[in-house]
């Protein structure tokens, strides 16, 4: 048994790629060793900015001789199949044996593989691993790059260590030969470092100021940042992503705390944190006031890659850079406030939302009208004026300097600027929060004005892209429409909005008519004699008055038809899309899709709150004993009716010309009591009560099937009983279509 060490040394690997690279290295080594018949169990992969390293413990020095047989395709099978079989088993076609299996001539591969030196296998594998290694982006370099075929790596590859049991595994890639030398820390170590074997690799590098284990470096940064903050009475704002990134930027991490001028704390803390994190990769700190509230402190923690002669010099340099960044942020903050949000919003006229749907200003106009409508209709209990005001300003921050610099701050900055301007708090909060919910874990807005703006924005986005037929397909969803529809669903559900979604989509899609038509018409260009191309919307009947050419009139009419068709189609597609997403969403929440189908099958249901209440009541009911048995009874009844092809002529008439059996009378009575109860409960949306009413039918229907013969020889009895079952299924079916329910 022996340990194998592989180090691929390169110029600085981007921090964000190191995790993936470790996984890739492990995957490729395992793939190659599996193919060579070497079992690899104990495997460690490390990364630093300048190296990827792998240690495979307990490898054999030689593989076992292998005798194996594999049954292949029959003789006469297509060449493709036979070749594939040969390739899979590493034999050539003329090595195949033909044997008879159940009377068919069949190919067999007999594989005899003598034991091989693992060192040889590794020597062959390393160049393959390098060649096949997949980086998010890779490059060519140096003399060899005169050919397009030269080795590609994330940055120039500068050294290979390959040691099995302390012996060099010799291999060469593009002129780079494996050996046992590497380099230590770029500045704390000089000249090559010689590695004896896998055992001493990490320690030899440690002596050369390189901590090869990324986890160890992450730990130092995490703990070091905490300690540095604690030492001055602050708390570091934890950021694991930043810990990992800094571990990927250093071989010898040294967290250092510095201070910046208090004045900068006037700008919103999010901007400070963002510029510190994104641009400089610094942690920020919080301070706790005597009353227990926390606020951002004027401190940052940078992670140096050296044990500096004088850390204060490094800190001071970093402080200056951060100060310049914060000065920029403050400059933007102050500059942006020189204009009102309404003035900023004018700039949206210059930003295209989508070439077919006009500018962002056009979108904002649609959103504002929609938000107002939501309030006026009472769907959202917000003030229509405030909702419209907030909607008209909600995208204004997109053209501010601050959001230009930090797009992540969209919404948030608008909220700050609105508050500074003294706009109503409902408005500033709505601007701030209207993008929510951004992800699965994010909060859904609850403030009515925010709900109106947020919902209107998402409805418009959905309507817009569906009308121009930019629907998500497969894994492609460039406009994040799935996220938008989920947000709509969550908004309706969480805040109990009573509205038909088809009505929402109708209103939203209708608003795209004008801009879409305008796009189609302007794309024709002006008429030959320079006349205006169209007058919308009063144009079609006024050809004479406007003196427009016949061609253009025709174009207008066909385009107008095209757009109304597109809108009609979008409404259908949107409903399908919503229902599809709803099922996915509910499945993740543990709801069986057939329960949703069982409610949808009743037809016409597009009130989400009612739908979900019904589904929820149904789900609870179906899980009870009564529910399960009633379902069984329903199915039995439905099957009988189906088998008999029974279409009751008069299901309502329960009068009998014979004396019913006890169980029969019991069911008749139970049904007479339960059916109206269930029906009124459904009407009043008391779905639990409807289920409870159905539950009273369980015992009677069970007893009925136990004691009563449906297919009685007396045609009158048979008819009455089939009618009874039909009434039963109808009563049950009013609550949900139980035939859709599995189980």
């Amino acid at each position, binding site marked *: 048994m022996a340990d194998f060490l592989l180090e691929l040394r390169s110029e*600085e690997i981007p921090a964000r790629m190191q995790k993936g690279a470790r996984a890739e290295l492990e995957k490729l080594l395992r793939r190659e060793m599996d193919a060579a018949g070497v079992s690899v169990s104990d495997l460690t992969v490390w990364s630093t900015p300048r190296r990827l390293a792998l240690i495979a413990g307990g490898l054999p020095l030689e593989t076992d001789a292998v005798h194996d047989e594999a049954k292949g395709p029959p003789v006469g099978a297509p060449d493709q199949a036979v070749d594939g079989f040969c390739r899979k088993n590493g034999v050539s076609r003329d090595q195949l044996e033909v044997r008879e299996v159940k009377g068919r001539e069949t190919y067999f591969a007999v594989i005899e593989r003598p034991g091989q030196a693992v060192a040889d296998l590794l020597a062959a594998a390393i160049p393959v691993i390098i060649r096949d290694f997949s980086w998010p982006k890779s490059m060519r370099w*140096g003399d*060899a790059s005169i050919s397009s075929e030269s080795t590609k790596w994330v940055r120039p590859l500068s050294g290979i260590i390959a040691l099995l049991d302390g012996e060099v595994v010799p291999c060469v890639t593009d002129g780079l030969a494996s050996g046992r030398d590497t380099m230590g820390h770029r500045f704390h170590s000089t000249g090559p470092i010689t590695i004896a074997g896998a055992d001493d690799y990490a320690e030899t590098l440690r002596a050369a100021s390189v901590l090869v284990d990324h986890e160890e470096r992450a730990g130092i940064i995490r703990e070091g940042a905490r300690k540095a903050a604690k030492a001055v009475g602050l708390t570091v704002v934890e950021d694991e992503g930043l810990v990992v990134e800094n571990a990927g*930027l250093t071989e010898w991490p040294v967290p250092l705390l510095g201070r910046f001028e208090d004045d900068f704390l006037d700008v919103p803390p999010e901007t400070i944190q963002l510029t510190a994190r994104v641009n400089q990769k610094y942690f920020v700190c919080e301070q706790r006031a005597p009353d227990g509230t926390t606020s951002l402190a004027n401190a940052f923690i940078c992670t140096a890659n*050296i044990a500096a002669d004088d850390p204060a010099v490094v800190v001071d*340099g970093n402080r200056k850079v951060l100060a310049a960044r914060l000065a920029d942020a403050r400059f933007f903050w102050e500059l942006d406030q020189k204009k009102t949000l309404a003035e900023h919003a004018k700039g949206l006229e210059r930003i295209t939302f989508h070439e077919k749907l006009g500018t962002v200003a056009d979108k904002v106009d649609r959103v504002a009208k929609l938000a107002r409508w939501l309030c006026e209709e009472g769907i959202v209990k917000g003030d229509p004026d405030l909702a419209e005001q907030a909607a008209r300003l909600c995208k204004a921050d997109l053209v501010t300097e601050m959001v230009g610099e930090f797009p992540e701050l969209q919404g948030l900055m608008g909220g700050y600027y609105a508050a500074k301007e003294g706009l109503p708090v409902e408005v500033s909060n709505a601007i701030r929060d209207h993008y929510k919910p951004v992800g699965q874990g994010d909060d859904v807005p609850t403030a009515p004005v925010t709900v109106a703006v947020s919902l209107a924005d998402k409805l418009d986005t959905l309507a817009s892209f569906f009308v121009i037929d930019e629907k998500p397909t497969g894994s492609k969803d460039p406009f994040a429409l799935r996220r938008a529809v989920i947000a709509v669903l969550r908004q309706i559900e969480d805040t109990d909005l009573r509205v038909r979604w088809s009505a929402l989509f109708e209103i939203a899609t209708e608003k795209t008519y004008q801009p879409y038509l305008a796009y189609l018409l302007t794309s024709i260009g002006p008429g030959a004699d320079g006349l205006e191309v169209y007058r919308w919307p009063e144009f079609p009947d006024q050809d004479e008055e406007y003196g427009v050419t016949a061609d253009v009139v025709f174009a207008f009419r066909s385009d107008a038809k095209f757009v109304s068709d597109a809108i009609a189609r979008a409404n259908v597609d949107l409903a399908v899309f919503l229902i599809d997403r709803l099922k996915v969403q509910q499945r993740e929440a543990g709801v069986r899709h057939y329960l949703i189908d069982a409610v949808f099958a009743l037809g016409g249901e597009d009130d989400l709150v009612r739908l979900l209440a019904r589904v929820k009541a149904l789900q609870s009911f179906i899980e009870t004993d009564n529910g399960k048995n009633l379902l069984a009874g329903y199915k039995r009844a439905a099957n009988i009716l189906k088998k008999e092809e029974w279409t009751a002529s008069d299901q309502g008439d329960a009068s009998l010309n014979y004396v019913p059996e006890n169980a029969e009378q019991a069911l008749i009575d139970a049904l007479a009591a339960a059916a109206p109860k269930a029906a009124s409960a459904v009407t009043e949306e008391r779905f639990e009560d409807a289920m409870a009413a159905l539950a009273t039918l369980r015992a009677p229907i069970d007893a009925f099937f136990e004691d009563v013969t449906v297919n009685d020889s007396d045609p009158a009895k048979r008819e009455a009983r089939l009618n009874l079952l039909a009434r039963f299924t109808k009563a049950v079916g009013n609550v949900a279509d139980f035939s859709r329910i599995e189980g």
Partner: protein
Amino acid sequence: MDTQLQATPTLARDPARSFQDMILTLHDFWAAAGCVILQPYDMRMGAGTFHTATTLRALGPEPWNAAFVQPCRRPTDGRYGENPNRLQHYYQYQVILKPSPSDIQELYLKSLAAIGVDPLKHDIRFVEDDWESPTLGAWGLGWEVWCDGMEVTQFTYFQQMGGFDCKPVAGELTYGLERLAMYIQGVDSVYDLAFNQHGVSYGDVFLENERQMSKWNFEVADTDALFDLFVKAEAECQNALSHNVPIAAYEQAIEASHIFNLLQARGVISVQERASYMGRVRDLARGSCETYAKLNEEKWAKDYPEWSLV
């Protein structure tokens, strides 16, 4: 400011106390490394990368090592001399090494040491930063080099130029001279930099220039004339290309690019038009690169049998 000339000049350079000494030290260093020391290209351009010594020389198989200072014009970055870090005119130090040598990072770090940056006192880092210039049909991978958290150099391995694979790959180093000097001299405003060892500051040389040029860029420049110049440069580029003189054509592409930047600063190009103008400049630059490559292809292929254009 000491305007008296020295009667007996001494040649002692002090990059830590003089902007020009820093430049001269870099010249010494890269000259000693084997580079051709060029003077700036005599046209207005947004970055040293536009210099023909970078773009055109990045094409083809011939080795090429050069270093030069290039004044850069970024009209929209002008701040009327009121911002300590932002200028509409500043200097880049460009080094282009083709093929990229295997010790290019070490060479670069030595050049930093030569101008007084000690890597045990200052935290030097290579942080991922890829470069792409749609205008030049070019991209490369590399880093921004950090010195105590400040970006002091852009380090790029060119992979494509003018739409062609770089064969071989060239390494490009772009030092931001002012910010590096501010760092080394320990000053907080670019205008406080010592330009020489005799009391002349950067502000003495450039402050008034920044004021006037910012005003011209943002407020004064005649936009009709600029639009006209753009169209003329575009036409002249095509004229040059049709006569197979791609270097002359490329100069017109540089001109068009700068005129476009001026129009941007004047705020007369809408967001929608912007993409279209950039596309026009790109077509000029790419056309020039393509004609340049095609013109030389036969000779290059003859001298370097292992090479091919595509």
